[in-house]
Each structure stands twice: as structure tokens, then as C-alpha cells.
């Protein structure tokens, strides 16, 4: 039975994919090898893992402003996450998602999204209404 999570209205198109989840933060500049498509920062909870075409589920944004360009640049090469779901986005992630036309949602009613969604869950995101559906919840 699918499980629906409500969140704030987000940005970008509808998206569906497999979740990659960690209770850690996100910056395209600080954390990623954007050529290889993997988390490269050794201290990151997802170090070494590929983010390509995944629905990334993380806590919040960190660091600087570069991510606003980088999401667009990553998407133009097809080496990008499919969507970003966060407890709290910052302005830069919103601006980057808007430019890249990448799916982004945050502020989930039911609490910590990094606990609500598990790695490997199949997830459908409808940012225009603020709704995320876990299609095969391991913990229904």
C-alpha cells in the first residue's frame, strides 16, 4: 500500500525514482565529484555512492552559492539526481532547482524525511501540490 507524505509546495516537474537517503547535508561543490557522479567528500554519509538518477533524500543544504549553477550544469550533462527531498532547503537549492528544472521539495508534515523514506524505496514526487508518494514502503 502506497504511503503519501505531504510537504511544502516545491519546484520542478513531477519525478519518480529510487531513493538514496542519509541523515546528512548537501552541497554540490563541497560533496560531489560532478564528473564521476558520486559523493566524493570522504566525511559524507554517502561517500562513494552514485547519485545519478536517484531521488536524493537529505537533511538540509550546506555551504555556498555554487550549487545554484551546478544543478543546471549537472543536468545539462545528464549526470544529476532526479529529485532532491530535504527537511529544509535553503535559497540556493531552490534557485538551482528553478534554473535546472529539477524536482525539489522540503518541509514534510510527518517529520524527518530522512527517517520517513528508506534507501531503495520507489518514490513519486509531485512538487506542484507538495506530495511525495512512497510506492513500495518497506515500513507501511
Amino acid at each position, binding site marked *: 500500500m502506497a504511503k503519501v507524505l505531504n510537504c511544502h509546495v516545491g*519546484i520542478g516537474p513531477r519525478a519518480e525514482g529510487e531513493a538514496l537517503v542519509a541523515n546528512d547535508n548537501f552541497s554540490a561543490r*563541497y560533496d560531489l565529484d560532478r564528473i564521476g557522479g558520486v559523493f566524493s567528500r570522504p566525511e559524507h554519509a554517502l561517500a562513494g555512492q552514485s547519485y545519478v538518477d536517484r531521488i536524493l533524500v537529505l537533511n538540509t*543544504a550546506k555551504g555556498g552559492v555554487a550549487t545554484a*549553477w*551546478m544543478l*543546471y550544469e549537472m543536468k545539462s550533462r545528464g549526470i544529476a539526481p532526479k529529485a532532491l527531498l530535504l527537511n*529544509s532547503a535553503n*535559497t540556493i537549492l*531552490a534557485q538551482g532547482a528553478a534554473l535546472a528544472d529539477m524536482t525539489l521539495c522540503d518541509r514534510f508534515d510527518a517529520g524527518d524525511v530522512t527517517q520517513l523514506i528508506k534507501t531503495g524505496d520507489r518514490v513519486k514526487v509531485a512538487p506542484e501540490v507538495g506530495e511525495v508518494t512512497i510506492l513500495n514502503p518497506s515500513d507501511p
Partner: protein
Amino acid sequence: MKLAPEAEAMLAGEMGAARKWAVEHQLQVGRMFDARDLVEVSQAHMMADPESTGEAGVRLVEGFAALPAEERRVVIPMITDPRGVDLDYYDPLGQTEDMANMERRFIAACQSLGITMTNTCINYQTIMPPVRGDHVAYGDTGVVIYSNSICGARSNFEGGPSALAAGLTGYTPRYGLHLDESRRATRRFKVNRQPRELTDWGVLGAVIGKRAGSYWEVPVIEGIETVPTSDQAKHLGAAMASYGSTPLFHIVGITPECETIDDVGGAGLPAEEVSKEDLNDFRGTFGAAGEKVDVVVFAAPQLSLIEMGAVAEHCRGRKRHADTALLVCTPASVYVDAKSAGYVDAIEDFGGRVLQGTCFYQQFAREIGEANGWTRLLSNSTKIVNILGGYGYRPALASMEDCIASAEAGRIV
């Protein structure tokens, strides 16, 4: 969102494709943060190094640059953050002709839009600091946190695309730090150890930023007994923004919106101590005494004229170790003054190199590191040691004085 008639006309495409793109971008971002309307801004500052923009970003701006003048020119003073390539010095750094060409194309496109290429992240020290209550659209987190906190101006973190949108429209969505309620303190920190040199201020900023940990938290700091210099406040803010994505802080009795803790609504917040141990523990994560150092970097933020003078003073009468490079990043405007003051010559006599209009971490740091075989990097910037871990470096932190002594010894002193 409510739009002024002029912005409505832009949205309808009556003022060209670039302004239409800009208002559409602002509406998307504004909706996400529940903005009621747009607010007029007096200046825009754009971060857009070629490593971040990539080919895609350069093409976007080139597309706008090809429009007729009345459709493409920015409508407010708009300046730029550091570039990724110093076009007078890139081959020796291991940067390629492709990188330089991307930079040349982007600069040409920006100039066609009427953007002034200041290439600086210390515009609040060198160009036109904003005034208290001034709504601006600034990029570079260090610029934003300083302008909000020390100047009392009002800006969100505006990434390159949003700063460009603000330049094209003269507006930005009114949300976040443009609103009084978002500027009130949410976390209260008590300091009982006074920072002294620049890196002490950076470490304090990093510890507070890490603990605050979100764009939407506003730290208020108690216990600072001396008014920081502009350079000290710069390192405090840059580090806090880097570790916490923090865009605003208050210091009781020092920053303009916080004469007393009541001014920012902080009196009812539980006080969290920042102890000597907290600061030492943080420093411990970037300590590497005795190890060989490949490159010493002064950047992030770019150096003011006063910092250039201090680096030069430490360099006089000494020489760097043959296996250790020294790079110093400063805006072109500071370079001119530093040259005439003899600071550039002193740094070059030591064996260092002063780069103009760039900042090391925005310069394809991974590729530069690989080309030169640099892994162990030493800096007095608490911000840069945070960023470069993801770029394949093993960064270490020391005071300016110890950085120069390490460059001389070839090992971290």
C-alpha cells in the same frame, strides 16, 4: 505573488526574453518561500566561476547577451564574484586553454549585459558597502553574511542565476532576510574566550555555524569584548556561512541591529556555551604539525589591502621552500594598491604568487591539485579548509604567521 506593473510587463515578455526568464525564475523561487511580492534591490552581485556554470551556464548567459541592448542590459549596478581563471597566470597553475576560453566567453557575455567585472568577494571592503536597511541581491555567502550582519543590509543568498535575475529586473522575491521576522535570533551563543588573530575568528565562526547548521537559524553571540576589525568580521562570517549555510548573525553591543539582546529577541533563548575545548577540538581536525606541505593558500575570502600588507610583512627577508608553493588571491583593485605599496614585490621575492580576481577554491581546484601533485594544503582560512576536502585535498589550518613559516620550512610548523 503580487507583481508591480513593470514586472507584469516583463513576465508578459514585453521587455524581452531575458527579463521574462528572470521574472519567471523569481516567481518559482518566491512561491517556494511564500513571498508575497518582489522587493526593489539597489545592487546585484553574481557568483559565476566557470567551474560552477560549466558550458551550460555560459551558454545561458551568452543567449541573453545576443539580445538587443534594451532587452539585455541590467537595470541596477551589478558586479561579479571572483573568476575561476586569472587570464595572466593560468598555464603555470595547470589550468587549460579550454578553461581560459570558457572564462573569456563568460566575461564577454557579462560585459554585453552591462555587468561590471569586479571579480571580488570583498566588495563590502572595496567597492560600495551596503547601508543598513538596504535591500540587495548578493551572491557569495561571505558577502551576504557580512552585508547582513555587519552592515545591516538585507539579502538572501542569491546564487548566480538569481543575482542575474535581480540585475535584469531590479527586484528580488521578498522572503527570508528581507523580512524583519526572519532576522530575529533563534540560537544564543556565549563566548568566554576572546578571538585574537584572523584564524581565531574563523574558528569561532565555524564552530557556531556548525552548531546552528541551517540557513534559517540566526545566531546571536554574547561575550565578545572587542570590536572586530573588518577583516576579522570577514573571517568570522565567511566561516560561519561555510559551515552552517548561515546568512546572518548578531553580536550583542557590536552589530547594528543588536545593541542589546532584546533588540533581536534573544533574551528568552537558552544560552549555549562555546568553550575553549570546543574551539580546540575543531582546530584539532585540521592540525597536521610536522607534515610536508605542498601548497599554502591565502584566499576565501580574497585578501584586503591590510591583509596583503600583513602577508608581505611576514614574507620579508625569507624564501619559500623549493617544494612548497604559495598563492595569494586578491581583487585587481587591491592588487594595484598592494603593488604600489611594495606588498606584491615582497610576496614575490619570497617566492609566492599573487593572483588577481580569482579565489583558489573557485579555480578548478581539483584539476589544479592533480596537475601540480598538491594534496596537503595549508591556509589561514577556516572556510577554504572546509571546502577543499571534497576536492581531493588534505587541508590544514594555521595562523597567517604560521602559514608563512610553514611555506619557508616546507613542513607545517
